[in-house]
């Protein structure tokens, strides 16, 4: 008999009776509440997926921890209405592929018994994974896919916290109105060119921009959808030049964003403003490759550390995130996914139950004020289609090679430079 076994036997014999004063033994801690998360953990989006995973894990630790921040469900050592049960996330890999996302969702529901699902980053994978949740009758919260069509499918169990591209398009027009108003001119811009790659991202953004533009009385001078993997955009740039727009709205990945910007410069396309749908235009390579030619470009973004002016938790959470993700700052994707887990945890807590219908009812009743989020949103409240109606983006302008928040004016750190400066030759 080894010393260790002996110690255990002795402890069993004497130790237990020595517990202070026969106090009632604490009940077993409630079992962990499992949330299933579908993310692109391998494949071309693995890098992004790793950041999202780190953000979701940080959210779990904030919920299970006891440090309080002005954020929902955070700092109560678990979910108080469920006996301080801890939440736990089980991850499943979508590989960025719709088919794989479906399989991942099925596994999370049938094998891991997840009470709700979250994910899956790309709109096409979110579409398939959420269909699985719909059939199974399990709440699905999406925090990071922006295709407008996701919330118009009439799903009962689907909720989306992030604004869709339709919201971002609306932000562009509100921005144009606000800038015109600030400059005391009735109309700054009349003719708009809409440019986008021909995938779900570019066409979704373009459709929303075109529809809202017409609605607001703008002329859509040209609408261009180009193959996403194109290696040259000569014809596209000439078409835009011929249309002579006052503003260009553009949705591109980095290689094509660079092709367009160089094409505009080379062919002397000089609108008053170029309004970009983030992606390639907020890639670190954009300013690096273009240098001073990037100055003046407007891009919408979903998040900025400038939001610290509204919620002091932003820089603190940013620090925590950097600590566990190799020093990389909290960005639009990680902030949205962190928020998504918190919204889900908040709903499960208010439901006081892990029954799907109870969680769904709590999600429907969600009402989180904007200053209790990490985002530039006015609130988190879902409409009948499950879309958060309080969502909004911000608009940044590249000034001296830096992305400066210029809209909405109440979180702006720099004034708008309008029109964008002429190309430097």
């Amino acid at each position, binding site marked *: 008999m080894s010393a260790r076994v002996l110690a255990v036997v002795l402890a069993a014999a004497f130790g237990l009776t020595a517990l202070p004063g026969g106090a009632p033994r604490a009940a077993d801690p409630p079992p962990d509440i499992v949330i299933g998360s579908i993310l692109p953990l391998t*494949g071309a989006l693995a890098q992004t997926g790793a950041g999202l995973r780190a953000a979701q894990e940080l959210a779990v630790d904030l919920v299970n921890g006891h440090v309080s921040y002005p954020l929902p469900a955070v700092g109560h050592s678990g979910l108080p209405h469920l006996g301080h049960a801890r939440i736990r996330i089980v991850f499943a890999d979508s590989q960025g592929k719709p088919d794989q996302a479906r399989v991942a969702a099925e596994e999370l529901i049938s094998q891991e018994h997840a009470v709700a699902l979250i994910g899956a980053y790309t709109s096409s994978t979110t579409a398939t994974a959420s269909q699985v949740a719909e059939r199974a009758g399990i709440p699905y919260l999406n925090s990071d896919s922006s295709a407008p069509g996701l919330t118009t499918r009439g799903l009962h169990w689907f909720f989306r916290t992030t604004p869709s591209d339709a919201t971002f398009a609306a932000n562009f027009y509100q921005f144009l109105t606000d800038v015109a108003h600030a400059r005391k001119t009735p109309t700054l811009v009349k003719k708009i060119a809409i440019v986008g790659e021909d995938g779900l991202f570019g066409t979704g953004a373009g459709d929303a921009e075109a529809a809202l533009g017409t609605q607001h009385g703008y002329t859509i001078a040209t609408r261009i959808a180009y193959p996403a993997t194109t290696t040259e955009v*000569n*014809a596209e740039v000439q*078409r835009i030049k011929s249309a002579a727009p006052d503003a260009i709205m553009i949705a591109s990945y980095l290689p094509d964003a660079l092709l367009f910007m*160089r094409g505009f410069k*080379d062919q002397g396309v000089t609108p008053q403003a170029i309004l970009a749908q983030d992606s390639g235009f907020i890639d670190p390579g954009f300013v690096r*490759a273009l240098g001073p*030619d990037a100055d003046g470009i407007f891009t919408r973004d979903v998040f900025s550390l400038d939001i610290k002016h509204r919620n002091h938790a932003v820089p603190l959470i940013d620090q925590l995130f950097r600590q566990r993700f190799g020093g990389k700052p909290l960005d639009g994707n990680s902030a949205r996914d962190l928020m998504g887990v918190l919204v889900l945890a908040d709903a499960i807590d208010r439901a006081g139950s892990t029954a799907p219908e109870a969680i769904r009812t709590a999600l429907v009743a969600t009402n989180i004020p904007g200053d209790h989020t990490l985002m530039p949103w006015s609130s988190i409240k879902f409409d009948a289609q499950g879309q958060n109606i309080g969502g909004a983006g911000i608009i940044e302008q590249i000034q001296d090679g830096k992305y400066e928040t210029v809209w909405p004016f109440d979180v702006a750190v720099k004034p708008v430079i309008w029109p964008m400066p002429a190309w430097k030759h």
Partner: protein
Amino acid sequence: MEALSTFGQLLVAGLLTGLVFALVAVGLTLVYGVMDVVNFAHGEFVMLAMYAGFGLALLGIGPLVGLPLVSIALFLFGIVVYRLFVRRLLAGPPEASVFGTFGLLVLMQGLAQALFTSDYRSVPNPPFQGTVQLGVFALPQAALVEGLGAIVLTAALFAFIEYSPVGRAMRAVSEDRTAATLMGIDVQRINLLAFGLGAACAGAAGALLLLSNPAFPDVGASFALTAFVVVALGGFGSIAGALLGALIVGVMEVLGGYYLSPELKLVPVYLAYLIVVLARPQGLLGRR
């Protein structure tokens, strides 16, 4: 007048675009011409070259100085790949080289993703920005340099194949492998050289493409797809055909994009390709 100058601008842009396509296509057609192997990983060789060029740029070595270095590095890489891998494929059935080089494509993309991540790497403040004004036409400097590179590369390769003893041996191998062996030509050595040269061409292409494109793991695929069409159109194995095919594809893509619709800009290209394949399967300047 306005319409005419637009047409002229598009035509010039199309020709320059075509030259860029030729840059990628010549290496592909050379390897096919000599070895009868379609190297599906050719685009990934270009990708590798772009990463190499990017690395040199970080060390302060510009793309034009870097070009010969990258070409030599890719030549050596090609030799290693041939010795370890392609040589064995040649011993198998014809499908072996198709699946083998396709496997190499997948492997190289995966490795690039693992080693370099899928982030875009663009050269900070690359040279040759801005345009050269030629009458009413504005010609982007980067495209001019790339186009010039394509012309020099094609001409040099053409001269090498036509007039040098090694080039003649390559042509002999390409025409009749057995006869060439009987004439005392070391077919293995010629194959090795051709594969290395093809890789070196990919190296030159990658170094030049870095002037206007970021490096990323999938970058080769977008260029290689066009290169396959170019090579099939111009004639598999024909260097002059690759140049001609590339110019046709470049002009059709740009004109199609403007006068039809940008979404449909590749339709006339693939239509022309289909017609050529049906009516003249060997391609415009191909033999057989």
